[in-house]
């Protein structure tokens, strides 16, 4: 048992080392881009306003911050943190999507599977370590990246405030709800992993079985199946099994990319539109957790169990592409 835990943690470390760039640097780079964009807009606004009105407007605008109530500042900061959190959830899904597509294919393509299989590590352990990397390790990296990004942004805003003779502590830092907003992001990551599991399982299956280009198999095989199903229904007009194929996939994607809205709509896309101004982070957490009661989640987990088991089974036989 002790050995198994040691092996498993070595596998997770290996995955982290291989994909450090995409798991760890991506959120930080996006944070830097956001900071740069904020700085650019600050400086260009300054110049623009100078041109138009002699530079008084910005001073006025910044000066007026002092007169806005704390509750409004707090609200604005919550909205900002939730929006960036939601953006990071989406990017996390994209990163994990491509990680999983390559997870059981890349080492077959370059032959390194023959090295991995020469070590006393079972195929079940290997496949599960990749699944845990997708559902826990990558999100943990993104949590860390989001925190760093938020702090970078707040430091830059503080500097701007200081430059304009304002106190960043009373205006900014005291009004940031770190625990609630970061808490919402962390819980969002866990909820996202749960809802995305059937997609992750499917991607792993495609990655383990593909002889060439797992992307085509993972994306176009379901599309083809969906179209065939629709044509079949349209031509035969036999609605015995009325089952929205694309609707199901679309709903899964919506839930897997924006976990903040998973508790909002049941089967209705319209209601799933996430609006950070409509809910506080506390309410978002409550709604997400409540959303986990939906029976669809259980179906998704069952589908994930089947596809991951298949991926393990295929991994035992496939040593090349």
């Amino acid at each position, binding site marked *: 048992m002790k050995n198994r835990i040691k092996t498993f943690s*070595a596998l997770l470390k290996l995955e982290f080392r*291989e994909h450090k760039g995409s798991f760890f640097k991506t959120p930080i780079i996006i944070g830097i881009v956001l900071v740069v964009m904020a700085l650019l807009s600050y400086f260009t606004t300054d110049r623009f306003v100078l041109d138009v009105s002699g530079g008084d407007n910005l001073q006025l605008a910044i000066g007026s911050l002092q007169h806005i109530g704390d509750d409004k500042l707090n609200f604005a900061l919550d909205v900002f943190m939730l929006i960036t959190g939601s953006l990071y959830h989406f990017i996390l899904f994209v990163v994990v999507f491509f990680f999983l597509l390559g997870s059981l294919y890349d080492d077959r393509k*370059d032959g390194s599977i023959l*090295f991995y299989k*020469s070590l*006393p590590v079972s195929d079940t352990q290997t496949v599960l370590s990749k699944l845990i990397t997708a559902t826990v390790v990558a999100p943990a990296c993104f949590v860390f990246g989001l925190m760093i990004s938020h702090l970078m942004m707040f430091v830059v805003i503080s500097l701007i405030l200081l430059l304009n003779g304002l106190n960043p502590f009373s205006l900014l830092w005291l009004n940031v709800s770190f625990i609630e907003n970061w808490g919402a992001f962390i819980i969002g990551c866990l909820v996202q992993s749960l809802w995305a599991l059937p997609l992750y399982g499917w991607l792993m299956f495609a990655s383990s079985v593909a002889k060439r280009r797992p992307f085509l198999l993972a994306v176009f095989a379901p599309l083809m199946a969906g179209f065939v199903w629709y044509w079949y229904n349209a031509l035969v007009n036999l609605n015995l099994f009325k089952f929205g194929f694309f609707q199901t996939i679309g709903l899964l994607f919506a839930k897997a990319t924006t976990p903040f809205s998973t508790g909002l709509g049941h089967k209705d896309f319209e209601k799933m539109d996430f609006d950070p101004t409509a809910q506080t982070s506390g309410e978002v957490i409550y709604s997400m957790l409540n959303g986990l009661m939906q029976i669809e989640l259980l179906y998704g987990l069952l589908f994930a169990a089947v596809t991951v088991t298949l991926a393990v089974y295929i991994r035992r036989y496939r040593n090349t592409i």
Partner: protein
Amino acid sequence: MSALLKAHHLNKNYGQFQALKDINIEIERGKVVGLIGPNGAGKTTFLKAVLGLAPCDGDLSVLGIDPFKKRAELMKDICFIADVAVLPKWIQVRQLLDYTEQVHPNFNRRKAETFIAKTKVKPSHKVKQLSKGMVAQLHLAIVMSIDAQLLVLDEPTLGLDILFRKEFYDNLINDYFTHERTIIITTHQVEEIEHILTDVVFIKDGEIVLNSDMDSLTRDYFEVMVHQNDYDKAMALKPLTVKKVFNRYIMLFKAASRDQVEILGEVQRPSVSDLFVAIMKEDAS
């Protein structure tokens, strides 16, 4: 001595194609076995079955374990190099040692570092920065630092230059091999390994056509330099192969005793590659 590897009635089909046909073999401890055969003969298929990489029909046990069912357990006591340069490209040498150390109970990291220190490979190198020969050296260093009972090498030096190849086998025999260990090697460059082999197995079209130790091989097969004058007399004894070199004929015989062929000319030990060619031809005719 008990057999380390036992295969009975081993069969493997790929659709219509029968890659292994009723293979029966036992390999004992302390042997260096050369598995030799033309391309597509079934060598790799057989090794894949031994290493638990592919299932097959029949009874196969390696160290008392069914390889396909319990590959992970078996790999504690077996190691293999299945091809040249299969180490992951992205990894640093140091990280590769970290990983191997963490997952392999019988890996001695200090030993590996000592082997690596003798090469140009540095711990901070990434595998993709290394030449093919250096990757082979690194892989061999790792494999030799694993206290395994069976080492399987499938074309481990393919595409490497002669210096690397020679050093590879020298290291293997001098620093690794003991009488407790067993090595199975396949390669096309038979002449480079024949001096280290204790046994040879020839495989052709999925069947074992020869399984012998080197001593009985040199006892049973003779190469004789026959003069032009004795040509007809020698041909009457039905040599397996005849090569004309200058004015003499080099003939390969399978003979019951040395006396029979000695009268024809100078007798010498045939090389494994000549024997291989002879036996492959004999089987075909």
